[in-house]
Each structure stands twice: as structure tokens, then as C-alpha cells.
């Protein structure tokens, strides 16, 4: 970065059918939000292995966002639901590690919710910025 001030590094893993489409829609509508999130596309949030989240945190991510379809909208019936269940487990582990569990979050953004994607981005970035750099950063 040119200026010294800290900016959060946030890893997003989002599903192809809802959240990725929603994020694209936000683009089409030119909804502006800060650029601190980097998204990886998977077909379904069901694909998200807890290990991915742990790896991101270990690599020093200040926050991790998982975003999928609303319940009932999953392109694969209930992958998002299965992922959501895993999130509880992950958040517990985070607490045990002494990490603030707000650093990992799951949201549900549909293909038609471009504006909501923008709000999610704002919100996630603000939350993580408040929490400051991850203690796991090397």
C-alpha cells in the first residue's frame, strides 16, 4: 500500500448461483463499496470446508465471509443450510482460540439482491476494521 494506514484483508468464499450473481448485479447497478474483500467462487457454500476458513485465518486474514443463497433457495437444495450448521462449530472454535467470532461471518444474498451485497460489503468491512488486525497476523 502507498500510505501506511492499515486496511483489512478479508477473504470471501461465495456461491456461484446466489451471492456471486448478486455481487455481479451490484456491479451492473454501479453500487459503490470499499474494495477490501477478495472473493473466491465455489458452486455452493456446501463446498466450504472448515479447513478453508482456518487456513485463511492462519494465513493472517482479518476476516472471512461466507455468502450463499437464502434458505430454501439453494441451487443444490440445502448446501447452504449444511454450511450454516458448520459455521456454529467454526465460531465455537474461534472463541476457544481466543478470536472474536465476528471475524468469521456467513450471509445470505440472493441473485436479485445487488443492493444488499453492497450493504453486506460495507458492514463486513466496518466490523473487521473496528476489530483491527488479526492477532494471528505474522
Amino acid at each position: 500500500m502507498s500510505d501506511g494506514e492499515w486496511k483489512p484483508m478479508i477473504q470471501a468464499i461465495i456461491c456461484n448461483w446466489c451471492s456471486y450473481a448478486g455481487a455481479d448485479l451490484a456491479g451492473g447497478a454501479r453500487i459503490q463499496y470499499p474494495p477490501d474483500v477478495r472473493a473466491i467462487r465455489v458452486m455452493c457454500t456446501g463446498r466450504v470446508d472448515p479447513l478453508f476458513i482456518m487456513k485463511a485465518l492462519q494465513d493472517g486474514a482479518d476476516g472471512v465471509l461466507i455468502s450463499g443463497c437464502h434458505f430454501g433457495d439453494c441451487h443444490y437444495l440445502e448446501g447452504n443450510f449444511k454450511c450454516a450448521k458448520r459455521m456454529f462449530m467454526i465460531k465455537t472454535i474461534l472463541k476457544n482460540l481466543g478470536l472474536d467470532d465476528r471475524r468469521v461471518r456467513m450471509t445470505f444474498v440472493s441473485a436479485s439482491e445487488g443492493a444488499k451485497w453492497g450493504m453486506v460489503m460495507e458492514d463486513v468491512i466496518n466490523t473487521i476494521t473496528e476489530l483491527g488486525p488479526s492477532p494471528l497476523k505474522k
Partner: protein
Amino acid sequence: MTGNEKPRIGVFICHCGTNIAGSLDVNDVMEYAKTLPGVIVADQYQYMCSTPGQSKIADAIDEHDLNGIVVAACSPRLHEPTFRTATKVGGLNPFRFEMANIREQNSWVHMHDREGATEKAKDAVRIAVAKASLLEDLIPKSVDVEHAALVVGGGIGGMQAALDLANSGIKTYLVEKDTSIGGRMSQLDKTFPTLDCSQCILTPKMVDVGRNENIELMTWSEVESVDGFIGNFDIKIRKKARGVMTPDEAEAKGIVGGGCNGCGDCANVCPVVKGNEFEMGMAPRKAIYINHPQVIPQIYTIDFNSCVKCGLCVEACGDKKAIDLEMEDQFVDIKVGTVVIATGYELFPVEVKSEWGYKRFDNVITGLEFERLICASGPTGGKLIRPSDGVIPQKVGFVLCAGSRDNTGEGKPYCSRFCCMYSLKHAHQIIEKIPGAKVYLFYMDIRSFGKMYEEFYYRIQSEGAKFIRGRVANILEDPLTKNLTVFTEDTLLQRPVNVECDMVVLAAAIQPPAQTEVVRRQFGVSLSQDGWLLEAHPKLNPCGTTTAGVFLAGVCQGPKDIPDTVAQAEGAASAAAIPIHMGKVELEPYFAQCIEELCAGCGMCVNLCPYSALALVEKDGRQVMQVTEAKCKGCGTCGGFCPGGAIKMQHFTSQQIVAQIDAFLLGGRGGAQ
């Protein structure tokens, strides 16, 4: 990359005119890409999707012997197929291609942060390169397509789609929840702007549908469940208990020459009287009924909610033995390759806008009620009378945008698109039928956008209808005469308006029908903000949906008039016919694979799979998981859970995803080490 193959990646950055280049430094990103491990060549171009842009890819593969391609441009949801083809043309397996989205999710959303956007683009490229370095050759799965299609909804849209599919030689199932096909259009009297009789142009189509050998018509039926995917949908249809057997059904039961012939003797003797929903409740029907003379099929139906099972109809039916008062719902399983959804619309409950007094004042009616009142086959034989006293109205007001273009949360934010035109038509019909009658149209804008629509507007103006540019504020009823006073402002005259009318017609907004939620979940179709079904792309793929093999026709996708509905139906039909005529579809080869060395045979994944594609099998003396690729849709839920990491999700392997994560987080923001 398989084995010890060294990554040789080519990176191509698209300007997309100024869409991308305008908001971030393409050159900087390209120079940065060159520094990345495995990158042999990096290039940039105005429009990568153009022919010269694509040939850059092919040429580079040839020139530098590349084994991985990264294009940083728009969303993969838009151009991934394009660049996969380009990669293939260059002689590489198309799945050696990875896309970095630096437009929809970068340049368009960070237009005022050039530095941030450029950093993000660099990261995106680095992440894509990391994945590209690990991509493998994949062979798409090709499946046979069932030579049959399903159309849900028997309105004009569904009928048109069914006819087109059937006429192109495809076995087509047409499922209609109601007792007859025809839908809303069959309730209309005349159609704008040509003024031809709706039934006259509709019934031939209805008859065609009834006769067509390739169409299996299932009225009084609904989709119960949907399984499978493009090419092979397994669908369960619920045939609701009709209480009456068709000749075929009767024959099947050994009743020779029996079954319903539509004679109606049963209805004549039926003692139960109900409101006829087809006539908007303004005419009676019996508990055993047909809604109107032109129904297809000509089979009576028993409304078991009101039937008292007195048995008189059974006697009246006599030897035909068509009636079975104990009939129960039946389920039929069908297999189809593609599906067209055409579930249409329902009227917005306009009484919610209480200022207009619908359902409070007798002489305030909706446009659809007007259609029945003015229709020769309607409850009044086409004599327009007002509900309160049967008198012929001499002064009629039309409230346009009754619930449309309303973002208070009570109404509908969108334009319902055909109310302006049918109100113009109604005005014409009154002027034509009732000499000297006065017609007032209270409007905000007249949206006469279709072919010959504006001309129709001229015509109605010249016929003497009075257009008052003001949205109706409220309506009051004179308790004695039941006459109505309409209040608004003539915004052009800039004077408040107080017009007495004998009758007021509300051009009520339309909304998605109640069962939309069920249908969309069955077929995995998303909703747009306004509650209508979401098309795959608003401009370039208005008939498709995010579920391959499922298409949309007519109003279910958004308000449309008849011509637009028919046009989209034909579009949806041809789109649905293509895979069927091709005979095969290629599915992206994102299936799960079991790495047997690592599989502990715990079987957790087996229960997780929504498609029961996984099973435990005995292999060299131990249990391992086995994938039925035909069933696997590649969601990766199993791979996301496998405790031993024994499941490999093709094209989304843990290795690849972890590499992407590392690339982002360990690579340093914007490449800054």
C-alpha cells in the same frame, strides 16, 4: 497441473473499453502479472471477447506452449464460455482456463478508488493464476436428453409453448392447475388494439392443444415434486380428484362407451350453488361444473369442498357412469428433458387501497370484472350494467395505476404494463355500446408502447373519452343512489376535480400468483425483487433461468401483454426444444471423486448428498465411497465435509482453493511484499 508438469500461464487483461480501464490501471496490473510465478506471458487488449482478443489467447498458447490461461475481465457468469472456447481453439483443454472478475466485482463498484481497485485487480489476477497453475484437463459429462418436455400452466403462454414444442415433434406434458386451459385470456372479451374477440382467437388454439397428439393435457393437476436435472427431470404430477372420469379413464375401468361427454345433465340436477370464479363470482355454478361453454377438456369437475354427495348427479349421468364421488388424487410420474414455466399472474387485492372503496362500494369494480360484464358470454350476456341496481351506467370512470407504481409497501412498485391499454379498450367499448355515455380516464401517464398502441390511443381520444391527468385520491359513495364521486386534481388544469360517476373501474395492479413460491422452489428458480421469477439475464437470456433446462414464458417472469407473452412463449419453447433435438447435453464435469487411499469409509458424505449420488462399496476388503457421476451435480457438499479430505471436487479441489487463499493472503495486498 498433473504430475510434474510446470505451470506455463498466460494472463490477459481486458480494458472492456473504459469499463475496466477507466477505473483501474490495466498496465500496472499487466506488468504485475508478469512477475507472478508460473506466468510466461501477460498481455492486455481493448476487448478480449472480440475476435482479435480471442485469437490473442490461441496464438499465445501456440507461441509459448502455455498450459494455463487467465483472463481478467468481466464476470465468468458472462464470458467464461467464450474464453473456454478460445482456450480450446488454442489446443488446450477448455478447463485449463480461469477467469478473474475485475469488472462487475471491481471496476464497476470501486469507480472512485483507482488505487484500491488496481490493488484488488492485482490480487484477483494472482489468485486466478494460483488456481490456473493447478488446473487439470477435464472432459465434460455428456448425458442423453429425454425426448419430452413439461409446460407448467395452461394460459396463452403455456399453450403456445406446448404447441410449439409438440409441433416440433416433442412429446409435451401440459399441466394446468385449473379445470380448463385458456387462463386469463379466456376471461377477456376483446383484445387491444385490434379489438378482435379474445375467445375467437383463443379457442382455436385451445382446441389445437386438446387435439394435438404430442400434447398430453393434464388439467386439474399440479406439479407435486421435481427431481433430476436438464435432460432427465423426474417429475411427479398430482391429478386432483375430479370426481368425473374421461371416456378413456372410464374405458380403462371397463365402462364401455362411458365417461363424461360434457352433456351437463349432472349440473342440471346438482342442488349446490356456488359463485363461478371464472365470472369473478358474478354468476352461479353448481358443485359439479364447467366454468364456461368453451372449456377444454369438455369434462365436468366436482368441487368436493361444497359437494354434499347427494348422488343426484350420479343418477343423472346414468349408464355413462362418469361420476365417482369417492375419487381420490392420483399421482403420475413423468420424465422430461426440459421444462417451461408459464404460471401467469393474479390480480393485486385492490381493496387494500381502501381510499377507492373496492368491496366497500357496490359500483367500484376491477378491470377483469368489467371484461366479464361487457362480454357477450358473460353473466349479463354482454349488457353492461352496474352491480348495485342493474342500471346501464351513463358515466364511467377508470382509475389507472390502481395499485401499480406505488412504493408505499401497500401497492406494487412496478408498472403492470397492460392496464393503460385495456382501459382504453374499455373506454371504447362503453362509447360503442352505450350511446351518449361519458367516459373519464384518470391517468398519470398513458403507456401505449406497443405496435399500433399509440394509434389506438389517438382513436379513443377522438371517440370522445375524457382523459384527466391526475391519480385518483379517493372515491365517495352516495349511500342512497350508490353513485360515486371521484376526487383528484386535473394536474394540467391545476384544479381539483370532483366527478360523479355511475360506475368506477379500477385498473388493478397484477402480482405473482400465490403458488409461485412453491413452483420456483420445486424448479430451483430465483425471484427478482418484485416477486416475479428471475430470468437468467434481463436482456440476453430473458427466457432462461439459473437452472439449466428450465425456461420462463409470459407474465410469470414479469408483467406482459398478450403479444409479448406469446413471443416469449415461442422463445422459451425453442430454447427448451434445442437440447431435446440435440439429443445430448454436456454437463460441466464438476463431479466428486473418491480418493480411495484416503477414504476411511465412514459414510458421513453419503447422507449429506442431496442427490443420493454417493454410496459405500466393498473394495479390497474395506468400505470405500463410490460416486455415481450421472447423479452428481457437483455442489461439493460432500467434499466440504469429508474429515479425511478423501473427496476430490473436480475444478474446485481443496488444493486449488487453498492455493487461492494462500495466493491472496500470503502474496501481500496488491502484490506488496
